[in-house]
């Protein structure tokens, strides 16, 4: 039942990270900071759950299940793009950054 433990831990970890990501989405004071949670914590959380699934299906079925890796690959490719496009939109919309954010002057007019 070792594998159940591993799967459980991975799942729990994944769930926690996903939750944290969404907490970040809600807790952070400005948009730029809110962006960090979903682009990172969530991605890791996903990875946790996917690996859990991989192990689970590899064990419960005869074959080794590796295709969950694909989802991770796609997430790794697309998450930065999403974040990048969003931040561009936010800059374009001149969203307020938290007071005291350094380097605001580095943002150029687009």
């Amino acid at each position, binding site marked *: 039942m070792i594998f159940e433990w591993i799967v459980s831990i991975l799942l729990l970890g994944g769930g926690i990270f996903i939750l944290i990501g969404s907490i970040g989405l809600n807790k952070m004071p400005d948009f730029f900071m809110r962006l960090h949670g979903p682009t990172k914590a969530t991605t890791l959380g996903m990875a946790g759950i996917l690996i859990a699934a991989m192990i689970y299906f590899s064990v419960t079925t005869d074959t080794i299940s590796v295709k969950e890796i694909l989802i991770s690959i*796609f997430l790794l*490719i697309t998450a930065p*793009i999403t974040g990048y496009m969003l931040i561009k939109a936010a800059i374009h*919309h001149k969203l307020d950054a938290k007071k005291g954010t350094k380097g605001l002057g580095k943002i150029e007019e*687009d």
Partner: protein
Amino acid sequence: MALLWIPILSLLASVIASVTGNLNRTTSAWLTATMPAIALGIAIYYTPVVFAGKTLLYSLQWIPAMGINLSFRLDGLALLFVFMILGIGLLVILYARYYLSAKDSMAKFYAFLMLFMTAMLGIVLSSNIIQLWLFWELTSVSSFLLISFWWHQSAARKGARMALAVTGAGGLALLAGLIILGDIVGSYDLDVVLKSGELIKNHTLYPVTLVLILLGAFTKSAQFPFHFWLPHAMSAPTPVSAYLHSATMVKAGIFLLARFYPALAGTDLWFLIVGLTGLATLLFGAYIALFKHDLKGLLAYSTISHLGLITLLLGLDTQLAAVAAIFHIINHAIFKASLFMAAGIIDHETGSRDMRKLNGLFKFMPYTATLAMVASASMAGVPLLNGFLSKEMFFAETLHQQVLGSMSWLIPVLATLAGVFAVAYSARFIHDVFFNGERICLTPPPHEPPRYMRVPVEILVALCIVVGIMPNFVVDGILTSASIAVVGHALPEYSLAIWHGFNLPLLMSFIAVVLGLFVYTQRKYFFQFQASLPSIDAKAWFEFWVQNSVNYSAKLINVFENSSLQRYIFLFLLCVLVLAGLPLFDMVKLAGSEALMPISPQNAVGAGLLIAGALATIIWHRVRIIALLSISIVGLMVSVAFTRFSAPDLALTQLIVEVVTVILLMLALFFLPQKTPKESSSPRILRDLGMASSIGIVVGSICYAMLTRPLSSISDFFLANAKIGGGGSNVVNVILVDFRGFDTLGEITVLGIAALGIYKLLTNLPLFMPSSDGEGRPWAKERHPILLASVSQSLLPLALLVSVYIFLRGHNLPGGGFIAGLITATAFILQYIAHGSQWVSSRFDANYRKIIASGILIALLTGVGSLFFDRPFLTSWFEYFKVPLVGKVELASAIAFDLGVYITVVGATLMILASLGKLTIGTEPKESK
């Protein structure tokens, strides 16, 4: 068979006329006249047989399903009318040859006239009552054409339309009456109807039938109060008037009364309606006729009056009234035709019909004047002329009737009164036109008409005299035979002698003549009195009535049809609410017997998100971008629901469609306002919410009721046969490409057509290119962020690979051509977004139209393929092959079919999105200041 030739010959005449009308006018007239002349010959040939009491029949099967045959029947009554129609018709042809001016189309005139003749012959010869009605309506149509012959005159147009309206309305009533009549007796055959008099009269529907049929007859024969169209029908060329007023059209109504006399007459109701209507018409027509300054107007009202007289006779309960009616039909036809022709000659020669202008014409056209005077005297009922005889009979019959019970004496009194006016207007016709001092400024001086224009009048006037002097010799046969046909049994004794001794009718005639002349001499006072009454112009009244109806209906229609889509939708939803909602109340219990599934927290969260998304959409519906984001939650949760409830294919499809839809809506939003203005008032919003939620509750309840009931469906068959019969283990996909492949074929066709339609919509689209977003921000400068550009091009091959994967597994596992197609399309769309249209089209210049067509073609041909194996369209085929190293491989026609789906989907989706995207090529959004 020869019977059939009578109307056919007349129809042929119409054809001949239209063909030869542009030849020499005389030739045309002769050629046209030949046909009715032959028809007349046929009628004469049959006269002895008919006189012998036989009824000739000829019948052809026509519409057996409705019990309508094409059948003709010649009895005494019909023969009489055939003689009148053909005889006077021939005279009219001759007369019209000279009457019409060079610029009038002879072809058209004769063609219409002969058509009219055919219709009349058809009426009188019909042995099937529906067929009778058919010809009846045909007279309305052809008379419309004749009355409107000079359509550039407003009076002709309006007169024709009015005549059509009145007689058309009567025709409809008649039709209704005849159908009921047919229902009562169980047949449309005239013989059956005529023999079923008792049955009909005792039937509960008799009053309805009678009234309807009488409405038909009265409108046609211009009985009061439906008389008003007739005077305006004289806008027609005079030969037509002569024909219309004497032998045809108006006589059709009388014919109808006579025709159905055995079946309908004899009841109190009949006597009351027919008698009183006739009486009223008789009086009214006679009175008004006196005041008409127009020659034809006078004659028209005189016609009305005489038709009233005949109707009254048919409505009297005496034994000989019907005979008198028939006799007067004959006499009236003769003198009225001649009078109209005379009036036409006068009009033709002087250019006027106004009796106030026409004076002393006797000097210029003594011959014509004499003829007119004789005919006119006959109209007045002067002895030795035919009019006198039937009028005497009429007076005699008014004395014998008991129609009004104790008040029956009124009828002879009023009849005499009408006689007074008849004499007065006849006197006016003679005196005011031909004498009454010198003519008033008519240049050039009128003279006698061409020789042959007078011939018809001469013949008719001669007949007036001959019949008047020797009635027995000339008309006895036909009168008897026709009367028997009307009365339906042998006639009582009667004599047509000129002299019956001094009796009450003679006294009535005498009073009429004396008082009539007196009235004419004192006409000034009558004219003054009449002028003080408000005059109604029927034409103006009719136009006013029509225009008002048009205006009111336009108002009413605009109330409903106000071009408001919201209203239309609301009405539609109201229907849904009522029709779907009401049966819910019939249900004893909404919940069914099935055990319910428990609600798990995660499902509750999913449902909560879905509901929240839906509510957010309507709350923010005016901020479009937010509404769009909100609705995406719903789409996402619907996919999750499909996953949750065991529908992986649906989940996949919904997800990918969702993505494409969002892109589509984003594309659209660029060309649309970003915000919806607040337009609806609060009550309106409440109303809409009320309607929407009511239907929501109804649909939800139905859904619940359905979900909680057991289902036994045909699907077990699909589960059982998917693998063995369809070669796939994904049953949903096997249904799509095999069991119900035809649906899918239709579905991709829809997609293809939509793409074509969209392409069509976007051609020549005038563009709105906003230079800034909803808040007035100018657009960002960077068009193709490099991060997006490079990632998307790396993603393309991966996406294609996944498409292939999804496509190939579809038959056995969730997936299939449609989803694969959308994945491919989305990957390409991503290229469009990341790099722009030009970049993509410079690399991939595909013609999406051809792609779509080939996709559908592949699917179609896959289906057609089975025909070559003599299997029905779309029959699938699959086989497992052993391939060395690889193992068992399945080949299935379903794959080819699915390939068609795939290609169509790719083509259609790209065509839709790319052509929308391409719109802006070369048109930069304007830089804002």
